């Protein structure tokens, strides 16, 4: 099997598994208990907080553990919104291609009276900092722009946007779920709030964290005990948190070499898939995650492509409507201007650190085969070839 869906989730690293198992065996005490067994759990928890903070250049007290990226996104937005409301600032700026954890929270906030501006991400899938600046109003309380997009992998100009927000006195949140562990992410970038999720960097699922710069007031999503400095109630999942820290330390420790290898493999894959006629890469070719490849193939539909790739032992994903269970294809592909016909024929391959050149070549051959086969009985393809319809790609 070739696993090329690392943007969906990653396999836990050996270090993470080892840490998790040993913590399940030893660190199972309640970190709030005062006896030494509980305090041992507390130590492990705080050590993990320190380790994670060190990787992103933050202070340990700026890290709040959550159940994952979705919760961190929800809490970041809700906190900034509540802060804004107290000051009479009820305008939020974000982008059209954020993860649903952000977009759906914004929808909910709109119903609660907030005004939301979603910035264009253009054909290359990149936010333009000057457009962020132009969108900021007197009553803007928050700008939220993801660090890197989960479907097309484009890396946003986070430092520039952070500098603008700082100058204008507006809070800046970034969803770094796809970026952390894969490209350098540091508090020096200037964000005030950041969301992360362990299972995207070889940690366990169901755990993540919210970074909140000192002084940024947080609002609770979950009320209860005084865990996480009173900002997130619930007995801590110490083994998962420790495993997240172990996973992050390991990926961050090998980031440069991993990125160099993956970028070379990614570009080989892109070159190979480009040979397929009437296809196109989605998102900027350079400002993109080392592991992300996303293509549209005209005349075919994504789910059947995925099923046939699965038969050939390749795991990938697609932004077609029929894979999402809705009638619309991916909002990300629509946001970069892909029309429906083409967006249905999308394929995302998110490769891992251990991918080999032989596997890349195997993927290219398999995709070529399957695309050719499916085009062979596609009525759209027939019309395109017959000149009854115009090619878009």
């Amino acid at each position, binding site marked *: 099997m070739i696993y090329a869906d690392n943007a969906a989730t990653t396999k836990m690293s050996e270090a993470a598994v080892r840490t998790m198992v040993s913590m399940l065996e030893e660190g199972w005490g309640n970190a709030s208990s005062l006896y030494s067994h509980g305090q041992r759990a507390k130590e492990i928890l705080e050590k993990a907080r320190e380790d994670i903070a060190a990787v992103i250049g933050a202070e340990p007290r700026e890290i709040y553990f959550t159940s994952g990226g979705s919760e961190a996104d929800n809490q970041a937005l809700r906190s900034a919104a509540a802060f804004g409301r107290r000051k009479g600032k009820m305008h939020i700026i974000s982008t059209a291609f954020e993860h649903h954890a952000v977009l759906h929270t914004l929808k909910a906030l709109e119903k609660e009276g907030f005004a939301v501006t979603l910035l264009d991400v253009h054909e290359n899938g990149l936010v333009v900092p000057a457009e962020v600046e132009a969108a900021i109003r007197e009553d803007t309380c928050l700008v939220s722009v993801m660090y890197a997009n989960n479907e097309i992998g484009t890396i946003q100009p986070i430092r520039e946007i952070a500098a603008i927000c700082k100058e204008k006195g507006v809070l800046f949140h970034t969803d770094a779920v796809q970026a952390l562990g894969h490209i350098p992410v540091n508090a020096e970038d200037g964000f005030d709030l950041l969301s992360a999720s362990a299972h995207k960097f070889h940690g366990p699922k169901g755990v993540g964290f919210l970074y909140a710069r000192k002084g940024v007031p947080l609002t609770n999503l979950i009320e209860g005990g005084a865990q996480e400095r009173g900002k997130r109630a619930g007995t801590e999942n110490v083994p998962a948190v420790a495993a997240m820290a172990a996973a992050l330390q390991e990926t961050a420790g090998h980031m440069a070499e991993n990125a160099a290898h993956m970028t070379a493999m990614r570009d080989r894959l892109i070159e190979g898939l480009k040979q397929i006629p009437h296809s196109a890469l989605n998102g900027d070719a350079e400002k993109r995650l080392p592991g992300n490849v996303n293509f549209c193939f005209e005349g075919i539909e994504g789910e059947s492509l995925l*099923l046939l790739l699965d038969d050939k032992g390749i795991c990938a994903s697609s932004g077609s409507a029929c894979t999402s269970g809705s009638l619309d294809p991916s909002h990300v592909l629509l946001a970069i201007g892909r029309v429906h016909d083409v967006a249905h024929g999308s394929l995302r391959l998110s490769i891992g650190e251990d991918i080999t050149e032989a596997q890349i070549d195997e993927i290219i051959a398999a995709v070529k085969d399957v695309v050719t086969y499916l085009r062979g009985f596609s009525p759209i393809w027939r019309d395109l070839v017959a000149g009854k319809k115009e090619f878009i790609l």
Partner: protein
Amino acid sequence: MALYSEKVMDHFRNPRNVGVIEDANGIGEVGNAKCGDIMKMYLKIENGIVEDVKFETFGCGSAIASSSMATELIKGKPVKEVRQLTNKAVAEALDGLPDYKMHCSVLAEEAIKAALEDYQSRTGISIDE
């Protein structure tokens, strides 16, 4: 749990009656690229019998499997029987489809109906008898 039944996967992997009938006397195309599934059915009807049927489909696994199964269900059958084909029958013959995929089997039924209507308007032979 697999996404689809074995029957669906079989018809998806080895679709029956794929292609075009050059001298078809009834052609129906339904769906649109916006929703993600398009089906085209070619019928060759002689003496009230569907002598041959072929299809082309742009769509998901269940769209391809539904097209394939539908062609098997109508091949060699009299027009008045073919007219009665429902998407439920197609889905049942496939050992079921996930709820959110039922609309793909509706397209198979609609493509056949559209092809029958095309046959009627081309030949002037009523499909209602």
